């Protein structure tokens, strides 16, 4: 609250979309690293959000995430994106083991009327930092992924969005009877992003 009064920062729709899509890029990298979907040595450390973040060096994954964030940013600017889900599946059985769910609430007034909002960069970064810390610490409670895994990203958009050429419609890839943990959220005053991870119920707990 104090930060807001000290530094009055103007945030536009475009800027907010950039922040949110960049956040997805880093979050996806962080999840892939922390959950061991790709080998540790394929990541390099960079400084971001005041934290050491890990980015993949794998050209395939890199270009996938770059294309993804570019598209997300476009949808975010149009206010059409409702949710992004990163799904981790078993490579062998394609069973969904983990779902990282980022739901997005867009301020419709901003999209329709093109007004801007006020929120300092610093504050947003601090909120994102808290989420990133939670993602990194999630390994402590998430069940071990003890088999080779693959990931996919689902984007939930408004119905009136034209499906881009490179995208296809998908099923939601839900987990039956999942465990869920809600993480922090962040808000650019234009886009509010809620993070939630759901994962397969540990058989241990069932007994």
């Amino acid at each position, binding site marked *: 609250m104090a930060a807001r009064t000290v530094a009055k920062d103007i945030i536009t729709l475009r800027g907010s979309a950039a922040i949110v899509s960049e956040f997805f890029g880093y979050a996806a990298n962080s999840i892939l690293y922390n959950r061991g*979907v*790709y*080998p540790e*040595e*394929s990541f390099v450390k960079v400084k971001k959000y005041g934290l050491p973040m890990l980015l993949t060096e*794998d050209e*395939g*994954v890199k270009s*996938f995430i770059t*294309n*993804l964030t570019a598209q997300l940013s476009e949808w975010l600017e149009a206010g059409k994106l*409702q*949710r992004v889900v990163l799904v981790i599946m078993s*490579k*062998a059985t394609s069973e969904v083991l983990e779902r990282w*769910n980022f739901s997005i609430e867009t301020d419709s007034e901003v999209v329709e009327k093109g007004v801007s909002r006020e929120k300092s960069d610093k504050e947003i970064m601090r909120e994102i930092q808290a989420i990133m810390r939670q993602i990194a610490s999630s390994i402590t*409670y998430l069940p071990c992924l*003890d*088999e*080779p*895994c*693959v*990931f*996919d*990203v*689902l*984007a*939930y*958009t*408004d*119905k009136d*969005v034209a*499906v881009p050429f*490179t*995208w*296809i*419609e*998908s*099923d*939601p890839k*839900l987990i039956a*009877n*999942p*465990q*869920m*943990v*809600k*993480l*922090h*959220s962040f808000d650019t005053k234009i886009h509010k992003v*809620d993070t*939630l991870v*759901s994962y397969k119920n540990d058989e241990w*707990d069932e007994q």
Partner: protein
Amino acid sequence: MNAGSLNSSGTIKTRSHYPLQEQFIQRKSSKENLDRFIPNRSAMDFDYAHYMVTEGNKGKENPVLSSPSREIYRKQLAESLNMNRTRILAFKNKPPTPVDSIPHQISTHNQDTKPAKSRRFIPQTSERTLDAPDLVDDYYLNLLDWGSNNVLAIALGSSVYLWDATNRSTSELVTVDDENGPVTSISWAPDGQHIAVGLNNSEVQLWDTTSNRQLRTLKGGHRQRVGSLAWNNHILTTGGMDGRIVNNDVRIRSHIVETYRGHEQEVCGLKWSASGSQLASGGNDNLLYIWDRATASSNSSTQWLHRLDDHTSSVKALAWCPFQGNLLASGGGSSDRCIKFWNTHTGACLNSIDTGSQVCSLLWNKNERELLSSHGFTQNQLTLWKYPSMVKMAELTGHTSRVIFMAQSPDGCTVASAAADETLRFWNVFGAPAAATKAAPKARTEPFSNVNRIR
């Protein structure tokens, strides 16, 4: 507060029945593990919770306590199923599946085997024990071999005995004269019919086991005892105490075709690779040589492909990997105690594991990526290793003295081990496919019938 009164009345209600039990049952039956929920004030939906506690129950038929997580789940379900409002899109191009890079192999290897088959049962005790009296307790000899005809040959003193694993009958092949003996090495030819017998007097005898007839004697290759033998088709390679390695073509009269000079002391380990192109030899001079068959010249001494001096004790245990042509495992003696893995094309040492005990012999599992090593002091055990992680899968104890020789059955399932305690033990360590269960004894009529005498 209204909420408080409602809440307390609820608890009073349950308490009127079974105070403690009820609570336990409730917890157990609850599908959500609330203790796994990490609280987050903003996620708690306090407004909603407050509404549910105060007003929500009034109009509701079923006063189910709605937890925040269940609410989120319901919301998520509703949203994801509500296809009218939302479109779920995914990239056509899927992200690349993680490749199993070499350093990552260890973990993927475990992951591969885990779902495929549950952990194999490895019997901790030997399946059968035979007496092997007068077995020469000499680390540098090779006195046990299991032929492709499923007959196990063992040299005890100056005699060679054959134990037919199919019908479990024992026969004596030969007893050499005392001045020539004892037998210092035996090796079955790949055909399972002929057997080479190396002697203390530097000669090598060739026997036909179907007719129990000696075919020929190879002389002149060595000046001292022949402690190691290895077949490569019609080539019988012999390693002697004089440090020489001789290739003998057993079909021709002047049988010595090549001599490999490199070792300065006794050659105790000798193995041809499965392709027959490379020969590994280990000696008492702590050296491991790799020789190339192709570059061997017919006349005189031949230069080695690799001279590997990483072991700090004599190298006897050698085993070529059955699933990777240029991978060799070697084990060092009592002051080295290491198992080392080599790429024999480049001569690179790929891994080294200190086993804590002298490595007398090594065998690869033909069916799984596993390696079995036999050891001496202190445990006298057989250790089964997962390759390449080198995780110990089993330690088989039973022998009371160092296990100097091991041989693998032709089906690859059973391992025979001979130790200085003068016993020969059989272990079903490499899995039990149908063939192995067939070979296992059906019934034991006498309590001590599993201890047979070989003579």
